[in-house]
């Protein structure tokens, strides 16, 4: 059309002659295919992507502008998939390790690898007359519906041992369950209708950037943004009012705010009288709260507790967004019950622009075809033996002990507390199978490595647990090398078992991926999405039909049918019925600093850290220290420091920053020390106070992690 466009053509021609890698202008003029994809990582966005494929290779990744949640923007990691899929570090052949941790890997064919694993499974059954010595440790590495094939397969071979519960959010789930009767939340865009938004223990600027659009929208209408966090995060830096709190003291701050709200008569009497239960008992609890103590423990002055309380109670509707952070504490569950109580006191429940937003499982809480698989003897998942999150050491002390551990979508050696302990258990387990894309810290201790295809390489469906949008992952490219989807891996293993020992597994090996997807979704998800086949999702934006505003009907499925300040279900479970904070943190003389992990924009747990382009922005291996603290120890920027406690020692490079409190040290979750040790090797295995009601086990507190540190000589 113009001279410039012609110029581009000439330019493209020249570059081809020079045999350069194709540039976008050039690629555009040749025929490229566009594939619809959706990120399957464990994240809020479930971002839809437009992927350009040329000659069977992905050449461009952008967000899908038709996606109303992302409006075409991906996160840094999302663009980085182009690197991740074709990473030189990616493993695309099945391998066997000569001796665990030796690094001596031998390539095998799929047939050979899966036959050897099948024989080991059969030997265990023959020797023990039980499959309990087989343990599945599967988690949220990839959230496609077909990733459930792994659990499905293990259901088909009889009751096994499963790593159960959740290391993530269960204390918060329980808090909502006990207070409201269920975990529900409003649509994320309803946050834009708030007059005050309190973001409590979350850094969405880095972990849910698209949600900040709704937060900013509220602000443009005049809403005030409050952030409560131990660290002046990227989100906190953008707030109108930032309150730096001592880690884990969130429940006490909420009780202090509640006391102010009650004392000053700022409660919504109508809501409290009609829709809540146990207010008098809660008020009695508040009488025992002394604001001076609150200030001393939380580090938030009394005047600020009052300011927070009056701001929140005086600007209805006010929303609270609870992150995952503040429930990772010894009192994590009760912290969230105390915060929930603020919404009840002020009548912010069931109101547009109000409510408490916390991740929920509403869109996922369905039982599909994989769940219904039963073993040949008819036993179901109910017969599984369960082990709590992070309790790998129990695998060898329980009877019968675990002999084969299958790890999928998970990297426990990096991500579990007391990481060295997990490492020990893996080393002494007879057989460890790891299905992954990269040589993770866990995979390095495997006997068998099974290469899993990326979500660009097989058809699947992803449902967002935050905005409930559902989308199809088209098969953009063929699986790289010999890698395979979880479903294909499990199906072939089942088929090999059928050959060697008919009747060992009941996994339907003839069913195709498309049939599985249809079977998994048709009963619950199709009606909720308003579709008749999953491929209908390709025609537009569909979301699971859940109410725009949670609790608008004020129907609470609790014992009393009301919001419960005083929880009968807690009582029935032997838990405190009121948000009582038990187990105060004691200071340690030897380890006077508390280590806190926050999430980097560059990673989800240990995922994405292999990307050299992201590493060019966030190189990792950093310890963030307040300048005053660093100065007292004679530490300068980039100095090598050793952080240590009874559990381990991690060499890291110092970054001096005033965003951290003087007696805290900050690291990025999933990061690794320069000696290769995961930072979680310093974190004690500790539980939060809730989680067992909804998830079967208490959540993990991931701290408090008391440490000390010193400068290491030599740079």
């Amino acid at each position, binding site marked *: 059309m113009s001279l410039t466009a012609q110029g581009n053509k000439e*330019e493209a021609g020249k570059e081809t002659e020079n045999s350069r890698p194709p540039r976008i202008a050039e690629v555009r003029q040749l025929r490229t295919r566009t594939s619809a994809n959706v990120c399957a990582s464990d994240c809020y966005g479930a971002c839809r992507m437009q992927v350009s494929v040329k000659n069977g290779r992905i050449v461009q990744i952008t967000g899908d502008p038709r996606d109303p949640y992302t409006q075409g923007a991906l996160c840094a990691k999302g663009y980085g998939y182009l690197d991740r899929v074709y990473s030189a570090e990616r493993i695309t052949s099945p391998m066997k390790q000569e001796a665990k941790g030796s690094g001596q890997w031998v390539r095998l064919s799929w047939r050979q690898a899966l036959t050897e694993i099948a024989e080991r499974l059969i030997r265990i059954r023959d020797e023990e007359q039980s499959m309990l010595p087989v343990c599945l440790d599967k988690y949220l590495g990839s959230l496609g519906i077909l990733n459930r094939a792994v659990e499905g397969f293990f259901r088909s071979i009889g009751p096994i041992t499963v790593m159960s519960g959740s290391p993530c959010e269960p204390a918060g789930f329980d808090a909502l369950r006990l207070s409201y009767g269920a975990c529900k939340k409003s649509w994320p865009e309803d946050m834009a209708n708030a007059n005050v938004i309190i973001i409590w223990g979350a850094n969405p600027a880095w972990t849910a*950037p698209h949600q900040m659009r709704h937060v900013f929208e509220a602000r443009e209408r005049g809403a005030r943004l409050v952030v409560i966090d131990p660290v002046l995060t990227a989100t906190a*830096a953008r707030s109108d009012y930032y309150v730096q709190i001592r880690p884990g003291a969130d429940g006490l701050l909420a009780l202090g705010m509640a006391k102010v709200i009650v004392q000053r008569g700022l409660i919504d009497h109508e809501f409290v009288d009609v829709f809540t239960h146990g207010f008098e008992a809660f008020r009695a609890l508040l009488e025992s709260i002394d604001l001076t103590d609150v200030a001393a423990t939380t580090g938030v002055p009394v005047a600020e507790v009052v300011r927070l309380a009056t701001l929140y109670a005086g600007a209805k509707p006010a929303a609270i967004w609870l992150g995952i952070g503040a429930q990772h504490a010894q009192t994590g569950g009760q912290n969230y019950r105390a915060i929930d109580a603020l919404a009840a006191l002020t009548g912010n429940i069931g109101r547009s622009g109000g409510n408490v937003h916390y991740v929920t499982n509403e869109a996922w809480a369905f039982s599909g075809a994989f769940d219904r698989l039963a073993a040949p003897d008819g036993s179901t998942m109910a017969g599984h033996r369960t082990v709590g999150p992070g309790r790998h050491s129990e695998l060898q002390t329980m009877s019968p002990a675990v002999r084969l551990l299958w790890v999928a979508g998970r990297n426990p050696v990096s991500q579990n507390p007391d990481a060295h302990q997990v490492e020990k258990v893996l080393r002494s387990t007879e057989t460890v199978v790891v299905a992954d894309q990269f040589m993770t810290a866990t995979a390095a201790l495997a006997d068998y490595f099974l290469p899993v295809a990326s979500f660009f390489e097989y058809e699947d469906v992803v449902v967002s647990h935050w905005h409930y949008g559902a989308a199809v992952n088209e098969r953009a490219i063929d699986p790289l090398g010999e890698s395979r989807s979880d479903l294909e891996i499990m199906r072939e293993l089942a088929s090999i078992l059928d050959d060697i020992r008919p009747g060992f597994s009941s996994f339907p090996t003839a069913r195709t991926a498309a049939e599985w997807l249809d079977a998994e979704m048709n009963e619950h998800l199709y009606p909720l999405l308003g579709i008749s086949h999953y491929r209908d999702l390709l025609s537009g934006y569909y979301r699971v039909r859940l109410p725009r505003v949670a609790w608008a009907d004020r129907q609470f499925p609790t014992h009393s049918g009301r919001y419960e300040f005083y929880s009968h279900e807690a009582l029935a479970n032997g838990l405190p019925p009121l948000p009582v904070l038990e187990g105060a943190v004691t200071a340690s003389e030897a380890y*006077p600093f508390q280590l806190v992990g926050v999430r980097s924009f560059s990673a989800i747990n240990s995922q994405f850290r292999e990307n050299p382009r992201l590493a060019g922005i966030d190189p990792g291996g950093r310890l963030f220290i307040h300048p005053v603290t660093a100065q007292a120890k004679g530490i300068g920027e980039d100095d090598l420091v050793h952080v240590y406690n009874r559990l381990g020692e991690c060499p890291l490079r110092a970054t001096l920053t005033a965003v951290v409190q003087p007696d805290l040290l900050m690291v990025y979750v999933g990061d690794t020390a320069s000696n290769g040790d995961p930072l979680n090797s310093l974190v004690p295995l500790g539980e939060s106070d809730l989680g067992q009601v909804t998830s079967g086990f208490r959540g993990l507190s991931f701290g408090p992690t008391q440490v000390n540190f010193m400068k290491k000589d030599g740079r």
Partner: protein
Amino acid sequence: MTSLQKGFLFDPNRCLGCRSCQMACAVNRHLPAGVFFRRVTAVELQREAGVAKYYLSTSCNHCESPECFRTCPEAAYRKRRDGVVTHEPSRCTGCGTCLRGCPFGAVTLNPETARAEKCQLCHERLDAGERPYCVGACPVTALMLIDLPGRADDPYTRTLPGVPRVQLTRPSLRFRPLHMGLQICQRGRKGGGRT
């Protein structure tokens, strides 16, 4: 018709430091790992009221008087009618004059080609009516491409706290003024942080 100059408008009150712009550019421009046309940096200034912290996303500023264009001995640079400063790598000998001349460090040497490269403002995307990768990647419209207003009616600022005010080349970059909220910070417990 008045002369047109495209430029970036950056809002430090919206930028999340998420690095989407930086990655979207580097990935889709197929740059070698570690080479970036756009960079996001954190600015942290100790103030009486707390810590003034914000992120700054910068690339080539497509200056009105581009030093790269002025000094390149091979005439590899051009300034388009819309103000975009383009670079033609095939004319480049990698002499480095532009790298040394650019006051913003916006030109990089591509280690794979040993030639200078910089942000071309995705001009082929602009010509096709699309946004540059960086602008399209911003989840909160902190980074926008605008037609720069004339000096008389410019509502934006040309610098931010802690950023050197370099105007010699008349960079096509404008900012919204930085706002800082109220901060209540911990001062550390007695003894605790000082062992």
